[in-house]
């Protein structure tokens, strides 16, 4: 064996230099990675942190008397993580859930089939069974620890104490891509209000989501909480709402409106609170909750009766004779007539070789009588006088005076009710008539049908109900609204404003006298509304329609201290008096007296049995 020599000894030193050099380079590289770049921290965090969203309880909804209308019910989804299922006692699991083995096997096959379940991963929880009720959940929860791989997530769904007020309440559904883009609050799988109160008060009802920061591994399995929960955020529950709706009145109205198309809006005049909000035909709001939501939605959507049309605010019609009190008010305000001014009626109004028909009544009539008898000739003559009156420099000026006063009563623009998608109705402006007839081509006679609420004038049922409230209040109204109070926050005063019309309060006496006369005088058109012991005022109307006319009736009671005013609108209901008047009468009685007197049950039965659904639907 050779002993060592000093050959190439310096090469040992070169090796040391290389080793130390490489190690120094590595340490510099480490310094660069660990001390001078910050991006890696963030990557590691986003890798490992899993933010588990904790959903807040959605606010519940009460009616005006504090009765619960909408609440939440917890439902339980059973989730399975296939990778962790080893050692499951399938038999016991099936008997606990009361399912049979074949169903279990089928569910597991479907879960694993990526064609049905594209997001499948054996490491993450997959939906095994959805919306288990509390009753079924109880026994499972006790034994859950014995079923490896199974877990439970709960979520709450909307529940309704009575199947009413669907159009006012609206519904809740999963957000779509547009919602997520518009509001950063939402993420895939969140729910939000789609229509009605649920949509309008979404931000108040939904509360604020909380976050629980968890650690997860590379397969997405959760491995415990991060930093002992110090970065968790507690959810803020949604606020509760009290509505102005009276559940009993609402329910009664919906029952009366069964098998009819139309709308009923009842308002408390002093406050603008909506007492009943009925759009018929209606549906059970709980149909649009839960796993069959989409199917129910499609069924309702496909109905020829336009069930999802929110009739009180989205449909609009010529107000017909219910418009006459408004005409009377403008005529008085513009000093064209006084309450005692009389116009003759010979079965109609004749102008330029045409005739605007009227029904048979004595003649001549003064203003209250004309309102009571709903005399077309009276209002046509007076309206023509107004538009062509020499006190205005032109037809246009006269018309604009009239239009301004009509609009001040809440016509022609959105009222600002706290429901989404309200329509504005329409009161034409001078440009519209100038466009049709030319600057000098029109005068009072041209637009004479406005006088009796026909022609181009369009109003929503809500606008008509609100106009009735304005008459009750002798010249003002409060923005009609359906939410009375947000719990812990009071009333949203930005929505609710007192609006004063351009009509002097003194002019209302004659009109109210006329509306009272419609109920009491022999030539009145609304005699059927009379309720023993209550002074009811009313005005019928008929909206002309290519098919059977729409039946309209507006009323309020009691006359001297109105508690409720109401508009009833029945599509294809014929003359107002036929259906709309008794309907209003029963509603008023129900609200003011609490129940309908036995001797009037025949009336109730007649209405309940009436089916107007197949009377020539609107085109």
């Amino acid at each position, binding site marked *: *064996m*050779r*002993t*060592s*020599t000093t*050959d*190439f*000894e310096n*090469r*040992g030193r*070169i*090796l*040391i230099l290389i*080793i*130390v050099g*490489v*190690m120094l*380079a*590595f*340490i510099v*590289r*480490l*310094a660069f*990675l*660990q*001390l001078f*770049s910050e*991006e*890696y*921290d963030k*990557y*590691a*965090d986003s*890798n*490992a*942190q899993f933010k588990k969203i904790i959903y807040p309880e959605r606010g519940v909804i009460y009616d005006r008397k504090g009765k619960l209308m909408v609440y939440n019910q917890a439902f339980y989804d059973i989730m399975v993580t296939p990778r962790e299922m080893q050692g499951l006692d399938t038999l016991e699991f099936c008997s606990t859930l009361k399912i049979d083995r074949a169903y279990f096997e089928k569910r597991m096959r479907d879960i694993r089939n990526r064609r049905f379940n594209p997001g499948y991963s054996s490491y993450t929880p997959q939906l095994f069974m959805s919306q288990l009720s509390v009753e079924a959940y109880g026994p499972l929860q006790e034994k859950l620890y014995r079923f490896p791989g199974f877990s439970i997530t709960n979520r709450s769904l909307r529940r309704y104490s009575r199947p009413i007020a669907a159009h006012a309440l609206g519904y809740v559904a999963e957000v779509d891509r547009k919602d997520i883009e518009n509001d950063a609050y939402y993420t895939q799988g969140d729910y939000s209000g789609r229509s009605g109160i649920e949509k309008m008060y979404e931000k108040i009802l939904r509360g604020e989501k909380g976050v629980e920061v968890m*650690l*997860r*591994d*590379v*397969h997405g399995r959760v*491995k*415990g909480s991060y930093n002992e929960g110090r970065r968790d955020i507690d959810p803020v529950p949604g606020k509760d709402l009290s509505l102005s709706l009276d559940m009993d009145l609402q329910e009664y109205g919906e029952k009366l409106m069964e098998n009819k198309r139309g709308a009923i809006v009842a308002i408390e005049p002093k406050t603008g609170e909506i007492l009943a909000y009925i759009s018929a035909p209606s549906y059970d709001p709980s149909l649009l909750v839960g796993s069959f939501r989409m199917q129910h939605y499609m069924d309702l959507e496909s109905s020829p009766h336009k069930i999802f049309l929110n009739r009180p605010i989205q449909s609009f019609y010529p107000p017909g004779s219910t418009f006459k009190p408004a005409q009377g008010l403008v005529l008085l305000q513009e000093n064209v007539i006084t309450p005692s001014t009389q116009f003759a009626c010979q079965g109609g109004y004749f102008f330029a070789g045409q005739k605007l028909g009227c029904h048979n009544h004595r003649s001549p009539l003064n203003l209250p009588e004309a309102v009571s008898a709903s005399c077309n000739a009276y209002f046509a003559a007076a309206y023509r006088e107004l538009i062509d009156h020499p006190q205005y420099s032109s037809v246009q000026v006269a018309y604009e005076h009239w239009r301004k006063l009509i609009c001040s009563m809440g016509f022609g623009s959105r009222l600002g009710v706290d429901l989404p998608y309200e329509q504005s109705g329409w009161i034409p402006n001078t440009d519209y008539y100038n466009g049709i007839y030319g600057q000098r081509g029109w005068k009072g006679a041209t637009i004479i049908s406005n006088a009796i609420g026909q022609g181009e004038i369009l109003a929503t049922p809500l606008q008509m109900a609100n106009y009735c409230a304005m008459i009750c209040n002798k010249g003002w109204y409060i923005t009609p609204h359906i939410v009375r109070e947000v719990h812990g926050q009071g009333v949203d005063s930005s929505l609710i404003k007192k609006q004063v019309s351009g009509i002097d309060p003194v002019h209302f006496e004659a009109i109210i006298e006329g509306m009272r006369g419609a109920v009491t005088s022999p030539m009145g058109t609304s005699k059927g509304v009379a309720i023993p012991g209550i002074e009811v005022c009313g005005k019928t109307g008929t909206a002309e329609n290519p098919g059977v006319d729409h039946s309209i009736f507006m009323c309020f009671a009691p006359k001297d201290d109105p508690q409720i005013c109401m508009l009833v609108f029945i599509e294809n209901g014929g003359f107002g008096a036929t259906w709309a008047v008794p309907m209003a009468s029963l509603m008023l009685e129900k609200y003011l007296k609490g129940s309908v007197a036995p001797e009037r049950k025949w009336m109730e039965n007649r209405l309940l049995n009436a089916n107007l659904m197949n009377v020539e639907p609107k085109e």
Partner: protein
Amino acid sequence: MNQKNNPISLWKAVDIQSLFIYLLLITVGWLTIYSASYNYDSADIYSFSSSSGKQLIWIAVSLVVGLSLLIIDARLYYYMSYHSYIFLLFLLVLTILIAPEIKGSRSWLVFGPLSIQPAEFAKFTTALALSRFLADYGFNTKSPKRIVSLFALMLIPMGLIFLQKETGTALVFLAFLLVFYREGMSGVLLFIGVCFLSYFVLGLRFGEQTLWEHTSLGNFSVLLLIALVISGLFYRYHTKDNKTWLIILLGNLLPVFAALVWNRFTKWGFDIAVLQLVLLSLSVVYALFQTLRRNSRIPAMIALFTVLSASFLYGIDYTFDRLLQPHQQTRILVLLGTMDDPSGVGYNVNQAKISIGSGGFLGKGYLNGTQTKLKYVPEQDTDFIFCTIGEEFGFAGSALLLIVYTYLLVRLIFMANRQRFVFARIYGYCVVSLFFVHLLVNVGMVIGVMPVIGIPLPFLSYGGSSLLGFTILLFIFLRLDADNKRRH
């Protein structure tokens, strides 16, 4: 060899420093494996089915084997070296024939619950055989037969391991080239090899990036490296004119520096690589002029090296772009880290860098690393174990670990140099070279400066065969060194 034993006790003769570092490293290794395989769900330390539990058994086995090796007569290692080498070759062949395929390689011999990887043990048997061969004959360039035999000793096990599809372990055998260099192999060969490998890696690694839009960063850096290397060569070998190297160095660097400033601050930029090529051509002309003037072959050789280097750079560009298939290009680029491949090789390196980078100065604390705990880093208790240290102990811990390793290597070189017997010295260098290459490749891979080649980090990575193999490698040298001391 002396026949009479020195009375110094064996225990006093064993190098305490290396032994201490060994024990320190396996302790840190075990704690890190425990941390890397730590499970949030069931933190069961002592279960022997977990990685850390199994490793505990292997540590015990390694300590027993290590102590036994210290007791064996040192001469036996010399005399048994070829026997053990041939036995291991037999095992390697057997492995190829009967091993089941595990993770794409056929390198495991399975005996019931026990699996061993013969390739890990081939490292020390080859080291022993090479040491004996070099001790007996030296690195004799005069005898081609001896040189061929020497390289055959190294290449045969390497080839067999290649056949087992353990490419990383096979490449590690190139570490013995460092030993050959130490024992007399021309350094120029080694140097040229390293140079060309650097050109290849730099050229492709930064080929796609540009320096202010006109210059390819890859070409720029390779050409700059060539200029530095030839300046160094002139300094080292062309001693007849001691100013040439400075002229070459400044002549190449100053215009390039000016061009960099020009490109950075004006809008009339140009491809600096063209300027570098012109300057290198001038350098070649100047070198040839020196050859004639000083009557020396050396400048001409350096000129030839320059031309070959530049041709090699543009040759790989051409080969890569024109001759390789797109999928082959992708594999090479991913390996070099140029191309992102988040699901494949690139994913591992990326997650490894995130782990280490997120450690900061002091780390997240023991058992608190999220990246490694949550299994974002693959192979985190074996090849990527350095990540766990980087994440949990930060810059302080990982740099300290590298310093400890460096100290061990330098200590082993010091010990090798003090050996009176050539066999012991060469074997010492074999140990140092093997450890060094493992460190270079493993840590380099984890911190993203080396291609991904899966080999373990000595004493730290999980794995019984590698721990036992490294222990035997080290303890034989400790025994040889102790013997050296006792026979003073």
